[in-house]
Structure formats: structure tokens, C-alpha cells
């Protein structure tokens, strides 16, 4: 009797186990490739690191935000084109030069398209480039310091939008003008736009050692709008593709007048040919005036050089340099697949996606299969380059990225969705809504020969009711989809800074080991660096007073200064003597008309204070640095102009 109980019990348990496991299986089939929940898949436990870095454009904030994927956690906002009082970017004496342009100091910019440097078509994690749209500029950001190292202004350009994309060995970072303008700039009637305005495509050489940029040449193009671009890769390496709109060359009410032509173009630029023309001396040297700003990591200081000329190649006079591929209805995105064979044109008003074939393009050029010409540039026959079309995929196609497994993912602004389709067969495989009105999307390495096709990030322009409301201005957002399975799955939704125009993703392992921990004091070549407390001093030069100050846990040296007079210009040159990871100090002075300084270990920064009132004025450390942070403070005595108090400085009475 007892035994039979046991048998029954055992068999019931077995049955239970079976049912339990089979239920789980069917559950996992329903939810796609992975059985874990969405929350689990985007969860990175406290103390653990994300798998990818995502560098997300800050759009009209002018900055670049660093996030982790899949968690969507924000790590840093790198100041690039806009001043940042938090980090003294554009406020301290060292970085003001970074925001210099031919129009003078500009405190704001509109950042758009980050792109990570590549070697042999693969991400190398050395630098990220990003363009400024409004006052055309390209910035290079170091991925060891996560600081903006260099900004170069682009002459003959306006609305620097089809930028800043790199070729597969980072030979060039490329910048194309969105607005055509008179070149050179002059006083003329806007109504005379057609035929007189020109567009410039700039090829900026990148020094493989230090990343320094130099405008190698510009290709002068007809007066269209150059919207986006991408490099050829693999077999199409040596070519660069630009989408165009406003081939109508309209100059007013563009929303209607630039949408009249049935087809605009994707311009294929042969930059290897351009190099030959440069070598053969077929360029014109044009006078220009543009700023080149470099931040030197050893002096912790930026300098501006005004460049005075640029080499120009005229596309209408140089055969074989540029060809036009007709592409329906104002193409926006212009994306090249990992093999380099397919060039996807997203006619933003078109009902279908147009895909061109690079090998067919080469053949059409060889066969001279032209359907006409525009300003001396051959127009290839539409059918001759067409690889295929994705029919009725959605409304308002914008951008496409690739997963490296033969699939493409395209965003649709009007129908607000991401659509997955197959390269070669052009069939739609899956579609998922976005919330709402998606612009760009990003797959880490999606603009390279080797994408990491695990996630796609969709960047939305509109969020309406998606988050807690914050008055009329609400956040824009990014949405993370798991694309490891056949169907895409939305697993996370997170707010972004500014407008997330575009992003560049990179496996963390390519960047993390190179991230700098602090600056070595012995390598600090700042002209006002003070490398030990014994060398601190205060020097008067007429009305200018230079304070050579140091900071270390938890005091300034000197911290009592007397002999300053109303009307002096007081330079605080402050060196952080710490040589320890994550021990920055800050400093701010009551009434100083500038930002705080936030100084990393081993770094020197300078702010200027012009005291206007007699009194004793305190300064203090602004970054909670240590247990005695609240004690990290000092005083400056300001005497009347005619006072004869002598200049003196002390620490602890010495």
C-alpha cells in the first residue's frame, strides 16, 4: 500500500515536471528568440557594465551624449559645439578657442551625425566625429579622454548636413552642404539662385596617428541640397554617395517647390579619381577663411589657426569624378550595405524604397548608359543602376541600417515604424511601431563592413504622452529593439538630451581599455601649471594678476590672498595635483562672471575674475571631492584701487 502511494506520487511529479517544462517551451516560442523577458534583456545589474557604448547626437543641444546599451543609462554629455558651464567648456581660458569660427566666437551649435573611426572597414574605437549643421564644422572627439579634441570649420558650405561620415580606413571624414550658396559668397539676388548657387562636398583628411584633420579638397557641385551621405566599402571603397533633393533648384517655399521633380539624385563621387586630379594639379586654389581649432592634451589648451585657402575640384569640368543616379522623390537617407554592393535611397516622399547596385552602376558607367546630364555631370539611366525596390513598405522612409545577416532596417517617419526587409529579395520581413515619428536608427557598426546586429536603436522626434509630462517641452526618445531573432522586439524606451539625430554604437571592449584615468602631472605642459605647493605664487603684471594655485584633498594653495584691487583682472590658474582616478576638484569665485572650473587630476585650467567691490571674498571647491570637501575654501581680500596693501599669499600662515 505504502509503495503504491510512492509510485503514484513519483509519476505525478514526473508528469508535473513534463507539463511545466513544455509550458515553458511554448512560452519561449511565443516571445521570439530569447525566452527571457524584455526587462531582463535590457537590465544591467548595479555594478556591471553595458555591452555597448552608444554615442547619441544631442541635436540642437550641440553636444554628444554617451549612453550604455542595452541599459539606456546616460554616462556623460560631452560638450562639443555649445558652451557648457558645468565643465567650463567655452568659459575657461583654455577652451574658448575651440568655439572660434570665421564669424567669431559662437556659443552654440547643432550637432547631427556621429560616426566612429574605422580601420579596414571595422570600428576601431579611436575617435568619434560629429558635424555641426548651422555654422558648418566637424569635430573630433577622443575616445580615450571623451573630450572634444579638434573642431574644423567648413568653408563654402551652409547647413552642414550630409556629414560627418568616415571612409573605411578613416582616410577621410566627409562633409556635404545641405544649402547651396554663392561660392564665393557675394551680394546677389536670391531669385538668381538657379545656376548660380553651388554646393560643396568637403573631403577632410584624417592623420592616422593623431587624428588631426585637414580639408584636402572640396568638390564643387550644382546648386542642389545635399542631404545625407555614406561611404562605399569593400568593392565600392573609393566612392562616396550623397543623396540630393531640390534638384528643382527652388529658393522659396521649399516644402512644395522642392518636391516637384519625380526623381532627384544620389550623387556618386569617385574620391580616388579626385585624388588623381589633385595630384595632376587639376584643382583651383580658392581664397577662404575658416577656423581650425585643436585642443592639446599636454598643454590642456586649445589654439585656433585661421586657414586662408582651400583646393577645389569642379565636378562639371572633370570627367569621371561624379555621376548621378536618379532616385525617386527627394531621397533623404543614403545608406550602403556592409558588402558595399547596395546603396539604399529613401525617397522621403516616395511610396517605395529604391536600391541601387554598385556593380550595375560600374557597368552603366562603362557602357555610357546615360539618360542625360546636369551641369556637365552624366545622369545614369534609372533602370541601369536599379537593384530593386521595396514596394509599399510604409510611409515616409528616412534611414536604413544593416545587421550583417542580410537584413536591412528602415525607419518610416509618417507611418512611425521600423521595417525589417531582406537585401536581394526586397521582401518585408517584420515591422514594429515606434513612439512616435522615428528619424534615424542605429545598429552598432551599422555603417561598417561588420555590424553588431544584436540591437537597433530607433530615435524618435515626438513623444507626446510617453513619459511623465514636463510642460509644453517634452523629451525626445530612443527605443531599443532586440533584433537577434527573426522578429524585432521592443525592450526599452529611454529619454535623450536635445534631439537624437543619429547615434554611433561600438562594443564596449573596443573603447573601455583605452579610457584614460587621469592626466599625468609630469606630462602637464600648461604654461601656467603649478606642479607642487612649493611653487605656488601670485604675480602682478600691471592690472593683471596671475594666481598660480594648486588643489589637492582638501585645500587650495594658497588659500589666503591679499593685495588685489578693484579693477584688477585676476587669473586663477589652477592645477589639480591629484594623481588618482575620479578625484576632480572644482573652483568658483563669488561674483565671477564666468562658470566654475571642473579640473581633472593632473590638469590645469584658468578662469578670470574682475572684482568690482571692496571686501573679502571667498572661493570654494564645487565638486564634492573628499570627507573635508566643505573645508576646501579660501579668501581673497579686495582693496580699493588706491590702496597700498602689498600682494601676499599664504597657506596655513606660511
Amino acid at each position, binding site marked *: 500500500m505504502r509503495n503504491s502511494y510512492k509510485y503514484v506520487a513519483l509519476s505525478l511529479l514526473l508528469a508535473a515536471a513534463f507539463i511545466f517544462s513544455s509550458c515553458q517551451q511554448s512560452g519561449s516560442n511565443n516571445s521570439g528568440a530569447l525566452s527571457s523577458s524584455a526587462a531582463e534583456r535590457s537590465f544591467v545589474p548595479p555594478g556591471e557594465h553595458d555591452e555597448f557604448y552608444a554615442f547619441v547626437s544631442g541635436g540642437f543641444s550641440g553636444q554628444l551624449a554617451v549612453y550604455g546599451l542595452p541599459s539606456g543609462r546616460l554616462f556623460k554629455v560631452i560638450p562639443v559645439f555649445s558652451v557648457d558651464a558645468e565643465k567650463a567648456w567655452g568659459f575657461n581660458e583654455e577652451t574658448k578657442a575651440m568655439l572660434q569660427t570665421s564669424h567669431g566666437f559662437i556659443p552654440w551649435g547643432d550637432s547631427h551625425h556621429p560616426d566612429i573611426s574605422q580601420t579596414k572597414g571595422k570600428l576601431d574605437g579611436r575617435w568619434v566625429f560629429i558635424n555641426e549643421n548651422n555654422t558648418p564644422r566637424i569635430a573630433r572627439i577622443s575616445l580615450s579622454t571623451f573630450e572634444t579634441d579638434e573642431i574644423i570649420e567648413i568653408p563654402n558650405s551652409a547647413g552642414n548636413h550630409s556629414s560627418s561620415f568616415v571612409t573605411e580606413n578613416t582616410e577621410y571624414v566627409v562633409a556635404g552642404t545641405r544649402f547651396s550658396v554663392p561660392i564665393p559668397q557675394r551680394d546677389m539676388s536670391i531669385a538668381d539662385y538657379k545656376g548660380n548657387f553651388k554646393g560643396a562636398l568637403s573631403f577632410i583628411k584624417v592623420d592616422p596617428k593623431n587624428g588631426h584633420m585637414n580639408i584636402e579638397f572640396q568638390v564643387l557641385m550644382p546648386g542642389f541640397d545635399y542631404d545625407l551621405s555614406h561611404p562605399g566599402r569593400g568593392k565600392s571603397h573609393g566612392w562616396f554617395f550623397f543623396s540630393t533633393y531640390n534638384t528643382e533648384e527652388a529658393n522659396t517655399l521649399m516644402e512644395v517647390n522642392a518636391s516637384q521633380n519625380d526623381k532627384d539624385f544620389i550623387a556618386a563621387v569617385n574620391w580616388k579619381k579626385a585624388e588623381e586630379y589633385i595630384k595632376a594639379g587639376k584643382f583651383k586654389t580658392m581664397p577662404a577663411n575658416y577656423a581650425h581649432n585643436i585642443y592639446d592634451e599636454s598643454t590642456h589648451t586649445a589654439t585656433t589657426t585661421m586657414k586662408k585657402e582651400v583646393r577645389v575640384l569642379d565636378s562639371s569640368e572633370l570627367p569621371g569624378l561624379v555621376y548621378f543616379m536618379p532616385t525617386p522623390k527627394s531621397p533623404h537617407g543614403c545608406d550602403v550595405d556592409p558588402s558595399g554592393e547596395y546603396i539604399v535611397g529613401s525617397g522621403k516622399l516616395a511610396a517605395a524604397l529604391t536600391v541601387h547596385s554598385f556593380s550595375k552602376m560600374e557597368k552603366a558607367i562603362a557602357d555610357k548608359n546615360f539618360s542625360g546630364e546636369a551641369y556637365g555631370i552624366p545622369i545614369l539611366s534609372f533602370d541601369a543602376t536599379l537593384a530593386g525596390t521595396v514596394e509599399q513598405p510604409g510611409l515616409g522612409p528616412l534611414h536604413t541600417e544593416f545587421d550583417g545577416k542580410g537584413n536591412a532596417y528602415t525607419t518610416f517617419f509618417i507611418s512611425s515604424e521600423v521595417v525589417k526587409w531582406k537585401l536581394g529579395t526586397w521582401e518585408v520581413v517584420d515591422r514594429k511601431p515606434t513612439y512616435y515619428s522615428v528619424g534615424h536608427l542605429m545598429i552598432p557598426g551599422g555603417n561598417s563592413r561588420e555590424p553588431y546586429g544584436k540591437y537597433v536603436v530607433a530615435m524618435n522626434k515626438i513623444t507626446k504622452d510617453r513619459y511623465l509630462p514636463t510642460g509644453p517641452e517634452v523629451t525626445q526618445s530612443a527605443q531599443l529593439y532586440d533584433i537577434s531573432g527573426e522578429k524585432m522586439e521592443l525592450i526599452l524606451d529611454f529619454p535623450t538630451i536635445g534631439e537624437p539625430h543619429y547615434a554611433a554604437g561600438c562594443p564596449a571592449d573596443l573603447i573601455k581599455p583605452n579610457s584614460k584615468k*587621469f592626466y599625468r602631472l609630469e606630462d602637464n605642459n600648461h604654461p601656467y601649471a603649478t606642479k607642487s605647493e612649493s611653487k605656488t605664487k601670485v604675480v602682478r603684471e600691471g592690472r593683471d594678476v596671475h594666481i598660480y594655485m594648486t588643489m*589637492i*584633498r*582638501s585645500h587650495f594653495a594658497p588659500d589666503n590672498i591679499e593685495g588685489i584691487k578693484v579693477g584688477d583682472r585676476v587669473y586663477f590658474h589652477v592645477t589639480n595635483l*591629484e*594623481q*588618482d582616478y575620479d578625484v576632480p576638484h572644482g573652483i568658483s569665485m563669488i561674483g565671477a562672471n564666468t562658470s566654475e572650473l571642473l579640473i581633472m587630476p593632473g590638469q590645469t585650467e584658468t578662469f578670470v575674475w574682475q572684482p568690482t567691490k571692496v571686501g573679502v571674498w571667498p572661493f570654494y571647491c564645487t565638486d564634492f571631492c573628499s*570627507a*573635508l570637501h566643505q*573645508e576646501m575654501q579660501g579668501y581673497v581680500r579686495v582693496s580699493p584701487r588706491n590702496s597700498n596693501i602689498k600682494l601676499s599669499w599664504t597657506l596655513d600662515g606660511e
Partner: protein
Amino acid sequence: MKKSQILMIVGSLLLLPLFVLPLWNISLEAPQYPTALGIDIYITKMADHNEGDIQNINILNHYVGMQKLPEKMKEFELFPIVIIVMTILGVIFGFIGNKKLFLTWFVLIGILGCIGMYDFYLWEYDYGHNLNPKAAIKFPGTAYQPPLIGTKEILNFKAHSYPMSGGYIMFIGIFMTLGAYFVARKENSG
């Protein structure tokens, strides 16, 4: 040359790596220092285990009134002489090949070692107890002396004190000389 003589000579020569390899290491571990801060003690100097460690230890210690780690010590002048003399002596003894001399050398280095450890203890005691009366943070009755050997909790830090490569090689060398004595005894009796 006999086996015991080779052991004796090689054993005493193994003191020489101390000129390039650290003898000892003290390291401090805390949650905010996932990579421990460490001091490598050589016979001639104290050095950073990782770049900046000594400066960072000094900065942390100054809050409780501890002195800076010394850059100069009389020991750093004395130790190299002792090591050189003992090595030369060991090699000479080795060539002579007298087992009693082997044992003498072993005992002598043992005594010197004990004196060295006692000296190290005295320094540690002073370093951990001789505090600046103006220190910002005071914990009455707390001493910050690192352990002579082993691991000890000091406030929020875990202090470890252990020999390093140079020290281990030295110990091997010393015990080789003791081995030389026993081998020599066997050789003689055989």
C-alpha cells in the same frame, strides 16, 4: 665542486635579486579603491605599486594625521651593504665548503632577518601611532599600524602586508643554504 657547495653559493647569490625586485608589499583595499593602493618596499626605496599610489596613500593618511611615507631612510642605505656583504660571505663560505660555515651563515642571516623585521615593526609602529595632533579626523585610541605580516582591518581599509618576489627568492636562497648544510653532512658521512 660538491653539491653542497653549489647549493651554498647559489643560495647566497639569490639575495642579489633584491636589488631589482621588491622585498615586501603593503596594500590597502577599500570599496572606493577597487584596485588596491600599494607600496612596494625594496631594499633601497619605497615605490608605487600602481602609478600614484604613494601620493594617494599620503593624501588619505593626512586626514588622520599620519606622516608622509618616507622618501629617505637610513635602512635604505644600510640594507644594500648588508646584502652585499652577506652574499660575498656566502659565496666565500661556499668555496671553502665547510658545513659549519654554512650553518653559521644561515644563523647569521636569520639573526639579521629578525633584526630587520623588528626594525620594520618599529617603523610601522611609529608610522601608525605618531600622529599629527592637528589632524582633521581623530579616532581616539585608534592606531593605524599596518600588520607585520598578514591582513588587518584599519577603519574602512583592509591592510595587507606580505613578502613580494624579491623576498620569496631570498627565502628560497636562505633555505638552500640550510639545505647545503644537511647535504654537506650527508656528503661527509658518506
